[in-house]
């Protein structure tokens, strides 16, 4: 052919064909690349959500910044001269109370030089014998050899300069001195500050007595009060702690005992005494002052708190709740964090271990060369200061973003502070600093399944029977008229359904609940009665309705059934529920009736799920080969018999996959549950209260969750769960459907 063409045409043809081939090849490449890219993007969703959750389960990281001998004049007692340690919030200054000089010493963590030394005047003529630093603030309480208490604070003033940037200047001052037991040395101190800034303190004196009291800077000092019953203690008192109400006090002795007091109720004698397998060598409250943290001489680390007892309601004996990784030597120091339920313990073999109470996780361990003498967190928990008995100070940077999360806290029962038993609870935020975040996904998963269950309970019968009727019995003309109805149902935005269900339907249903429940029986009964009545109508009248056009008769019957149900409802309520079903539910089942309950959800969710199940099952029913039907009719089976015994069993895998897909939709539905339930994350299957689902929980909480925080990532776990659940459901359904389709093709 080209030979016969004029050369110019041939040239054009050649170049154009080259161009065409080039374009073709480019297009091939581009489309392939972008096709694959899109598929990768889709896969990315799963991967990205998964990646966002991973940091939750990573353990904490630490990086040693420096290690050096405690500076300052050498002391014969070694590290023993440092009574308490602290770090400022900028992590630029480490400080400690030097017992020998009675001064606060500040070490710069950047230059590693001593930058300030502030003597406390009250310690000029006596020696500090015990000290305690508040885990929340840079405030100290020092007990002296002459029986006085010294209140002091360290201050850090940051100044900003355009040239030099930030400089932090440490200072310290003595706040007050209080005489507790003149002439008798104080051996242990503990204190808390309440919201108005008053100190609630407790001290142990060398004569084995305990004093407690309240101290306020603006009020005249009050006499400390002795705590009774200590004369009967079996040994020497080693530690004492008191809560911020000045009420709950615990003391330990060197005879393996722990004594519990409720000071406002019973100051004269301990409320309870507990025996331990070894001496308690470290004791403090975790933040919030409701859980005790204990370290024992045998290396055990435990958390104890009060649990309601049968006879005592407000006075609660304590019980061992959490145990942590056991140390291989005696615990020497236990430092609770000032921000969360974490704490760090040190042992006589130099081990330093970071634990978290709620999750019982051990997040970090490291080892000093000598027994641990003292430990301190920085206020932001991003640095840890450890002092060995050999006087070596170690400063470590810590990255510990999600200590409270473990598979156990997400999916298992956890014994939270203040609760009587381990429980599944979701409560992501609370009012106080001592709040223990509760991240159990179980109530949400149960809520999700509950919502889906009630949704399907209503949707499956309506959708599947409706689909069966449409595909098998309905006149084609009518079907064309019906389809838009289902399409509209499928197209309804879920926010509309949720709004109507929550604001219009729920209050209405409350007044007509018994009648609505009765409709489940009355509607089918009226229809069945209608069938009988229909058979007795004159033939001419019946023939006016075309074959497969029964729907026109059924529709009014449904309305009649509904009317009957609603009419009988109040009657039934009077007879069976003594006139008020809500009262009856409360008395007999012991449940509070909620207006936005699972029945509302069931019906509302039905709107979302019915069209899906309907369409897919109708497809399955219609795809059953006609030969089956014809054969059945030929054998004399009726229309219903054929449908029920032949069509339904054959199409059942298709119906099953329809239900699976409907389930997937119900599980992920957000707006309906968000608007039509109370969104309380309770663990209950009752139809008369609401639920909070995984999806609604995400919608409620993620706007308030700081990016990359624990809550944020936990919500990603919820999203991942939803994704996995629906993806599994849908894939399973899809496989079943494909299998079914192949089977039909073979027939």
């Amino acid at each position, binding site marked *: 052919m080209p030979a016969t063409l004029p050369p110019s045409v041939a040239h054009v043809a050649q170049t154009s064909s080259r161009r065409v081939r080039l374009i073709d090849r480019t297009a091939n490449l581009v489309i392939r690349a972008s096709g694959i890219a899109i*598929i990768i993007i889709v896969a990315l969703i799963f991967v990205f959500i998964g990646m966002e959750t991973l940091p939750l389960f990573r353990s904490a990281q630490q990086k040693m910044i420096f290690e050096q001998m405690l500076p300052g004049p050498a002391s014969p007692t070694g590290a023993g001269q440092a009574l308490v340690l602290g770090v400022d919030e900028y992590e630029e200054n480490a400080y400690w109370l030097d017992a020998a000089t009675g001064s606060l010493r500040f070490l710069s963590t950047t230059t590693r030089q001593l930058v300030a030394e502030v003597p406390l005047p009250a310690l000029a003529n006596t020696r500090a014998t015990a000290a305690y630093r508040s885990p929340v603030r840079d405030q100290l309480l020092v007990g002296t050899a002459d029986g006085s208490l010294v209140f002091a604070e360290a201050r850090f003033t940051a100044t900003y300069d355009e040239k030099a940037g930030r400089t932090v200047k440490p200072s310290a001052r003595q706040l007050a001195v209080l005489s507790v037991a003149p002439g008798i040395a104080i051996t242990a101190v503990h204190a808390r500050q309440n919201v108005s800034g008053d100190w609630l303190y407790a001290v142990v004196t060398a004569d084995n007595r305990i004093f407690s009291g309240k101290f306020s800077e603006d009020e005249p000092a009050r006499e400390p009060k002795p705590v009774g019953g200590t004369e009967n203690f079996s040994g020497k008192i080693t530690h004492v702690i008191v809560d911020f109400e000045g009420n709950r006090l615990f003391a330990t002795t060197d005879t393996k005992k722990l004594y519990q007091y409720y000071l406002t109720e019973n100051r004269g004698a301990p409320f309870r005494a507990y025996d331990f397998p070894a001496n308690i060598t470290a004791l403090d409250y975790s933040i919030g002052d409701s859980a005790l943290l204990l370290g024992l001489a045998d290396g055990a680390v435990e958390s104890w708190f009060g649990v309601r007892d049968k006879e005592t309601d407000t006075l609660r004996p304590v019980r061992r709740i959490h145990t942590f990784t056991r140390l291989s030597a005696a615990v020497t120091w236990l430092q609770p964090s000032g921000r969360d339920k974490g704490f760090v313990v040190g042992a006589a073999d130099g081990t330093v271990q970071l634990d978290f109470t709620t999750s019982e996780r051990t997040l970090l361990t490291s080892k000093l060369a000598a027994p641990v003498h003292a430990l301190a967190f920085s206020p932001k928990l991003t640095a840890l200061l450890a002092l060995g008995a050999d006087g070596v100070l170690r400063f470590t940077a810590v990255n510990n973003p999600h200590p409270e999360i473990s598979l156990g806290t997400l999916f298992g029962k956890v014994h939270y502070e203040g609760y009587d038993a381990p429980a599944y609870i979701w409560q992501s935020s609370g009012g106080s600093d001592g709040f223990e975040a509760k991240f159990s996904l179980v109530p949400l998963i149960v809520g999700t399944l509950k919502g889906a269950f009630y949704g399907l309970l209503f949707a499956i019968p309506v959708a*599947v029977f*409706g689909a069966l009727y449409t595909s098998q019995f309905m006149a084609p003309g009518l079907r064309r008229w019906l389809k838009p109805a289902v399409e509209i149902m499928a197209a309804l935005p*879920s926010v509309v359904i949720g709004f109507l269900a929550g604001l219009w339907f729920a209050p209405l249903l409350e007044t007509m609940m018994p009648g609505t429940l009765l409709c489940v029986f009355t509607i089918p009964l009226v229809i*069945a009665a209608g069938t009988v009545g229909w058979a007795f109508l004159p033939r001419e009248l019946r023939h006016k309705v075309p074959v497969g056009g029964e729907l026109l008769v059924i529709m009014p019957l449904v309305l009649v059934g509904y009317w009957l149900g609603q009419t009988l409802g109040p009657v039934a309520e009077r007879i069976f529920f003594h006139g008020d079903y809500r009262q009856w539910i409360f008395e007999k089942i012991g449940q509070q009736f909620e207006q936005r309950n699972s029945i509302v959800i069931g019906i509302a969710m039905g709107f979302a799920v019915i069209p899906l199940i309907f369409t897919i099952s109708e497809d399955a029913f219609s795809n059953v080969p006609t030969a089956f039907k014809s054969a059945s009719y030929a054998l004399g089976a009726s229309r219903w018999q054929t449908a*029920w015994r032949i069509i339904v069993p054959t199409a059942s895998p298709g119906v099953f996959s329809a239900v699976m897909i409907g389930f997937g939709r119900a599980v992920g539905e957000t707006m309906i549950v968000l608007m039509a339930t109370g969104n309380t994350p309770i663990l209950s299957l009752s139809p008369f209260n609401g639920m909070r689902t995984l999806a609604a929980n995400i919608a409620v909480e993620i*706007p308030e969750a700081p990016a990359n925080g624990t809550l944020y990532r936990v919500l990603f776990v919820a999203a991942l769960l939803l994704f996995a659940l629906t993806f599994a459901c849908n894939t399973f359904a899809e496989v079943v459907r494909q299998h079914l389709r192949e089977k039909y093709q073979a027939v």
Partner: protein
Amino acid sequence: MPTPASTLTQPARATTRIVQLFRRGDHLLWISGGALALAVLLVAGLLLVVVRNALPAFWPFPVTAVDRADGAKLLGVVTATQSAYKGTPAQTQLRVGNRELTNADFIWVPTAQLTNFRTPADAVQIERQENGDFFGFLQRVEVKGLSVADGSAAWEKLLALQPGARALATQAKAIQLDGIGAINAKMQTAKLRLVSAQLRAGKNGAVDPALQATVDADLARLQAEYEKLRAESGALAAQAAETQAVFTTIGGEVKKIPLTAVVRAFRPNAMTTREKLAHYFSRAAEFVYGQPRESNTEGGVFPAIFGTVVMTILMSLVVTPFGVVAAFYLREYARQGLFVRLVRIAINNLAGVPSIVFGVFGLGFFVYFVGGGIDQIFFPEKTSLHLPTFGTGGILWASLTLALLTVPVVIVATEESIAAVPRGAREGSLALGASKFQTILNIVLPASVPGILTGVILAMARGAGEVAPLMITGVVKLAPDLPLDGSFPFVHLDRKFMHLGFHIFDMGFQPPNSEAAKPMVFTTTLLLITLVVLLNLFAIRLRDRLRRKYQASAF
């Protein structure tokens, strides 16, 4: 069985017939029909409820004066009645308005306590700029404290003066919004220039003094302009406020209302049907074109409509090419095998993944990861002041999230329409020497355009009705600025926007005044349903026509 003769034969026949009927399962057949009927009735019922509540929302219902048993006189519109239920007697709900005087817009009163219902012709209902509606009787109109009209002339005067006063108020507001808004924006830019210079100079470097001086001068000039505009707008507002209408409530209290605060004044009891219709359509038009007032419970939903449309269009601009290319890849280029089958299953199932999961992805990936990254690179000066630009929810991220959500819809529809292109057409093209791409471009693509369109419209309908992923990627209850406007660069992809669906959620779920919000939320619902259902029905009709066409032309 009226006659004795039939009593002998009929019962036997009747029983047999009934037994036969049950044996055949006719009753079950009917009950299954009942399930379908129930579904249809539910949909019809839902639509009816929405229409029933939405349509009368703008109608001026008669203002009723009524005496309560305790001697109080009430003036308002009867909005609902409730029959007695379990100890609570029958109640009537009245909208009595005058929120600042009575503290309650809507009150429930036991019907038995209400007597002497009457509809005074001179009762005035006023739709106000704030504080909800006012009900009362007009006494006189004052300008600068002096009465200019009273008695029957007052009403005419009020109607005559109200547009002028409103216009002045609108002008004052426009100065505040546009003029002062623009100055604020300029001040912000000037300050950012300084921050940006500081960032360039480094932590310890000094900013160029010349720049510092210019910025300071700019700021001073802008401040002066600002003062001038504020004085101007204040003067206008004061001038507008000079005209006041003096009312008495039914309780006899005197209330002065500046005409600037009057959106609409009308006397429902004296209106003719024609006037009522005009009123109805004027309010309906305000609903569609107007700005929301009174924390969204009054006025219009124009920003929400606009936001929904812009977001949907942005979404389809993204989803169409991606969906179509992916479909062509799967259908025409990929080697058909297990992998493609798996991909297809995955894409089908993606449509079933809950929308909130996409929202979470959008928030984590688009907003924080991509948006945060863009901010770091392109807007360091704002980021250093913790002012995110793209690192917070916005219309772009919301659209992209929805594009991901709807991509399966487009892929599936496109694939279906590609598959429906007759093989003959394709082979004919190839036989004539066209390349594969030429065939696709010239034969397959044009033939599948209606199918693609169907997919895109379905995707748009889905996108318009979706709320959950939007509320975490950029929708807000009140956005002062539209995502498209006259100020450079015209399209503001970083802006937050309003959305009809979220509007419903917000007003329905956390309304400041739930009764007052009810008419608005129902009308918004009707609007959204109409939009979504029309889009859907259009797409489905298109697909059906397409299917029929190919059934006919297949060879």
